[in-house]
């Protein structure tokens, strides 16, 4: 469990990036911090591994104040994945993944073997192991970044907009990959995003932030979706434009099959719903079908 207690961060230039922030981040779940640019998401996340030190207040991991842990030691125990992968350009893929274990004294051969296994875990072909980062696609680089983040088998994984620089289809794949990994590994993941659909898809807990790290609303995606706490949240999730309110269309129908078309309040088709024998399907989402909550962005994909 990670806990923020009355945390404030004022940068030397006077910017108040985070103002009296408190939050409990439960273990073995994905917590997504979401909010517009400059709302303090990255600053909050970097206070967990002491890349930023709080001006006042405390950040605790399992009851231990991080300020009492030596930064290098702390950082090696926490996985960190960033937007532009942050891979070392002069090291091969396998060496990038093995970097931290080797720093920690794992014998080189063993660290490389483990790195290859991690490539399997994140869905990278082992034939890419000897390539340099510049020889990979953006999506592949992000996978390497995730593999590197997992290399020390950390309990905590910090992911700062890891997929915002890849194209939507690859992003989709990577998001599914995170869900698959999480089902398997069950880590405490803190994920920063400015994309509300990504937040709803991945988050067990979603925390909507405003400037200064002020929490506007937090909770399970369903709760936020059903009851946006403020105008701001409603706007942010698109509820104010009727994007989240779907109805079964009377007029639009697929040419064949039992499916019916779902439209938002603007009348735009956003998905399909099964209607076998005229009965609308009501399902409980299984982990695999969790992507359904993201259907608004994948119309036609269903």
């Amino acid at each position: 469990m990670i806990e923020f207690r009355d945390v404030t961060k004022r940068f030397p230039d006077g910017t108040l990036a985070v103002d009296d922030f408190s939050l409990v981040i439960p273990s073995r779940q994905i917590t997504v911090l979401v909010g517009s640019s400059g709302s303090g998401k990255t600053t909050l996340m970097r206070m967990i591994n002491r890349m930023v030190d709080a001006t006042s207040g405390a950040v605790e991991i399992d009851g231990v104040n991080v300020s009492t842990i030596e930064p290098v030691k702390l950082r090696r125990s926490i996985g960190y994945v960033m937007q532009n992968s942050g891979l070392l350009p002069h090291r091969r893929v396998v060496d990038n993944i093995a970097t931290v274990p080797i720093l920690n004294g794992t014998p080189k051969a063993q660290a490389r073997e483990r790195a290859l296994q991690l490539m399997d875990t994140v869905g990278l072909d082992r034939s890419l192991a000897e390539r340099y980062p510049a020889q990979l696609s953006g999506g592949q680089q992000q996978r390497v970044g995730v593999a590197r983040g997992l290399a020390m088998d950390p309990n905590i994984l910090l992911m700062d907009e890891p997929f915002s620089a890849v194209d939507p289809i690859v992003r989709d794949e990577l998001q599914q990959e995170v869900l698959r990994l999480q089902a398997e590994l069950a880590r405490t993941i803190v994920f920063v995003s400015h994309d509300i659909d990504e937040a709803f898809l991945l988050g067990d807990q979603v925390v909507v932030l405003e400037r200064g790290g002020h929490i506007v609303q937090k909770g399970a995606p369903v709760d936020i979706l059903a009851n946006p706490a403020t105008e701001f949240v409603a706007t942010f999730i698109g509820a104010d434009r009727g994007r989240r309110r779907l109805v079964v269309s009377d007029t639009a129908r697929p040419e064949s099959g039992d499916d019916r078309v779902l439209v938002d309040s603007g009348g735009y088709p956003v998905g399909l719903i099964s209607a076998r024998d005229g009965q609308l399907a009501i399902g409980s989402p299984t982990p695999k079908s969790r992507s359904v909550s993201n259907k608004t962005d994948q119309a036609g994909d269903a």
Partner: protein
Amino acid sequence: MILLQALAFILDGQNWVSGPRILYQLGVTLSISAISVLIVVVIATPIGIAIGHTGRGRGVAILLSNVTRALPTLGLLSILIVLIGVNATPVAIVLVLLGIPPMLAGVYAGIESVNRSTIDAARAMGMTEGQIIGRVEIPLAAPLIVGGLRATTLQIVATTTVASAFAFGGFGLYLIKGLNTADYVQMAAGAILVTALCLLIDGLLAVVQRLVAPRGVPRDGADSASPKPRARASRSRATATVSPLQEGMQS
């Protein structure tokens, strides 16, 4: 033709071992240069790394470099010789003073040119500052660092000729003697020898520069996220390589 005569002078094997003793003068030039370069590397590299890594002290370094560049080489050498005596020390001091700015600029510009987000990621992974310097910054900055070394070495080798004015030896001796005795063949030979030596050393260091280039990093645009430091880097490299040969000969 003086040039042809000068070439004949150089190609005459006898001149290498007896008479003008080209071989001996080559040895003098190389050893005083090598010692000076070594001292420069030992002084400038850690300072350059500290400046590049912390981003602090750059202004002071530039200021001091400019002051050093403005020093009249010959005048300074004269004063030092009066103070210390005719031996290798004053020559080495002058050479080191001249050699430091390009080396320093190469090192800090090199380190500064490394993509900030790469360094940030290395730190976030749990590298110590020393590991960041040794495993990330220096390997990625290596070509620019060697670029600085190249400029420094040329500057120093070319300037050793000046030292010859004080009967210290080296190829400059041919220039001085030639001038005094109106022996233009010897003078031209001296100039050719210095130039050839500089070109040779420059070529060798150019090869080294290629060899140390980090693999996997495209020659240009790899650090596209940091166009500013890169531009700065190439600019300081440009000033650093401003024809050390001429500068050395003039002063």
